[in-house]
């Protein structure tokens, strides 16, 4: 049943959305879909294994950088570049995850945040590849430099949107396959009780690093998608504070379900665009997110994906009771 709902809604998104909305909204939707992958990575790390990373946006920037460099350097097919970018980012992310073996909670968050800051400072100095030569691939010489290329089957914005949706769906399948398997059970044990995991024979070091590798791989793939979506990349697109905003939307979306990452993508990218459209400064989302986090922490730990279905059910019960009461009141009189 759930599989049917998911397939139908995915088909609707693929076919209908690009033809229903303007180019601007297609681009916004593409950014939201790509962001879902980034949110999925943190959702896995935090929701499944219980490790907080505040360095995910820096990893996204790194993934974009690596993919852009590979695009300009090689003529490799687009999916291969996505895969390579993901793998390289995965290796780097695993190294960043090394402190997680010794540190937890606030200290891990702080260490990953500092690393994110370091990465973004380096990226500000070396800048993003734009078709130049050398290792860094950046040149100031040309005024008109080329865009990062898109796959030949998805050059137009609506086709690229569909491409991004398919890649994102694949990332969710990868995550689902992990959660329902040996790794998912080991992660659950690590999150709830490291002694119990150890007593069960779980190699905690290996499974923690694997979670970092997987989340970083996904974030690297998202970086590649983003690079081709934007065409031109700037360090200012990846402010360090976005890693904190990411944690906020992942929490609001819901960390106990992978689908929370879908909600997180909408919250992070669609909501600011909507506010902008209504003539409100998108900066106000920070305030909305603050209120949202407060609500999640106090009343709805399962986030949007857990709370909304419950609220809808409650509303349905309320309505049917109201209708029933009305019918009951009329009954004897009529």
């Amino acid at each position: 049943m759930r599989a049917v709902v998911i397939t139908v809604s995915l088909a609707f998104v693929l076919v209908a959305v690009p033809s229903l909305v303007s180019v601007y909204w297609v681009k916004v939707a593409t950014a939201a879909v790509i962001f879902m992958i980034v949110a999925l990575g943190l959702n896995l790390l935090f929701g499944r294994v219980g490790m907080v990373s505040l360095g995910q946006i820096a990893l996204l920037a790194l993934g974009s950088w690596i993919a852009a460099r590979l695009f300009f350097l090689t003529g490799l097919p687009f999916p291969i570049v996505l895969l390579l970018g993901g793998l390289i980012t995965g290796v780097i992310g695993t190294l960043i995850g090394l402190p997680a073996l010794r540190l937890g909670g606030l200290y891990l968050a702080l260490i990953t945040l500092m690393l994110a800051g370091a990465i973004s400072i380096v990226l500000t100095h070396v800048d993003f590849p734009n078709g130049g030569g050398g290792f860094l691939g950046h040149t100031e010489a040309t005024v008109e430099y080329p865009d990062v290329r898109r796959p030949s089957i998805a050059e137009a914005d609506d086709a690229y949107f569909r491409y991004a949706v398919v890649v994102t769906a694949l990332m969710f399948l990868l995550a689902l396959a992990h959660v329902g398997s040996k790794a998912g059970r080991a992660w659950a044990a690590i999150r709830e009780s490291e002694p119990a995991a150890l007593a069960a024979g779980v190699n905690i070091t290996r499974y923690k690093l694997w979670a970092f590798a997987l989340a970083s791989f996904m974030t690297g793939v998202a970086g590649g998608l983003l690079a081709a979506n934007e065409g031109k990349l700037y360090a200012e697109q990846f402010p360090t504070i976005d890693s904190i905003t990411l944690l906020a939307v992942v929490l609001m979306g819901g960390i106990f379900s992978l689908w929370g990452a879908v909600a997180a993508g909408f919250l992070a990218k669609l909501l600011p665009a909507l506010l902008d459209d209504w003539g409100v400064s998108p900066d106000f989302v920070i305030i909305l997110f603050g209120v949202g986090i407060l609500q999640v922490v106090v009343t709805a730990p399962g986030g949007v994906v857990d709370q909304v279905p419950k609220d809808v059910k409650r509303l349905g019960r309320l309505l049917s009771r109201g209708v029933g009461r009305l019918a009951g009141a009329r009954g004897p009189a009529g």
Partner: protein
Amino acid sequence: MIEVEGLTVRFGGVIPIDGMTVTFPGGTCGLIGPNGAGKTTFFNVLSGFVKPVAGSIHAFGEDLLEMADFRRARWGLRRSFQQEQAITSLSVFDNVAMVHEHSGQARSSRRQDVLDALAFVGLEVSPKAKASVLDARDRRLLEVARATVGKPRVVLLDEPAAGLPDEETIHMGQVIAKIPSQFGALTILVDHDMSLVSACCETTAVLDFGKLIAAGPTAEVLHNEHVVNAYLGTEEEL
């Protein structure tokens, strides 16, 4: 058989285990003593959570302290915890399967082995139920199922009946007493309930302030003068 020689654990100035030398011959062995005697610390040394400063532990001839902590479960060392550690977000089945898949047993027998372990402890809930909905008794039984699935060689039970009413403690005792014959595993039971220890354990060792004060057949040990003074108390005191 587990042979412990001169085991000493030190936490700063505290010495929870002080030159402990004891042999657990096999079957179900009791390990008793007052709070703070070092019973749980001893289990934590066996599990690898705590590194001793001196001494050795040989289990069936193998040097346990040389083994990496996470490898000990694969070798066959299992345990339950004083505070039950059911993984609440996993199903009952997955709680047990999680142990089985790290135990080096064949994947093909996993389903049957897990169901057998659940049946062995007498857990009568759906294997698909989330562990979070289980009551105290069922969580305790789930822990024992986790400790016995997939060819255990040594089973450590740390107050498995703590907080359970008498009737359920009797059921737990019957399950524990069957472990050695069913799985051929040496079982060590830590508990404060002397009727449970008497019912399950052929031999019992007594710790006090990290030192072994008595060991032998359970009935003899429970009447030992030192044990009565250090732990059980005399009838007048009761």
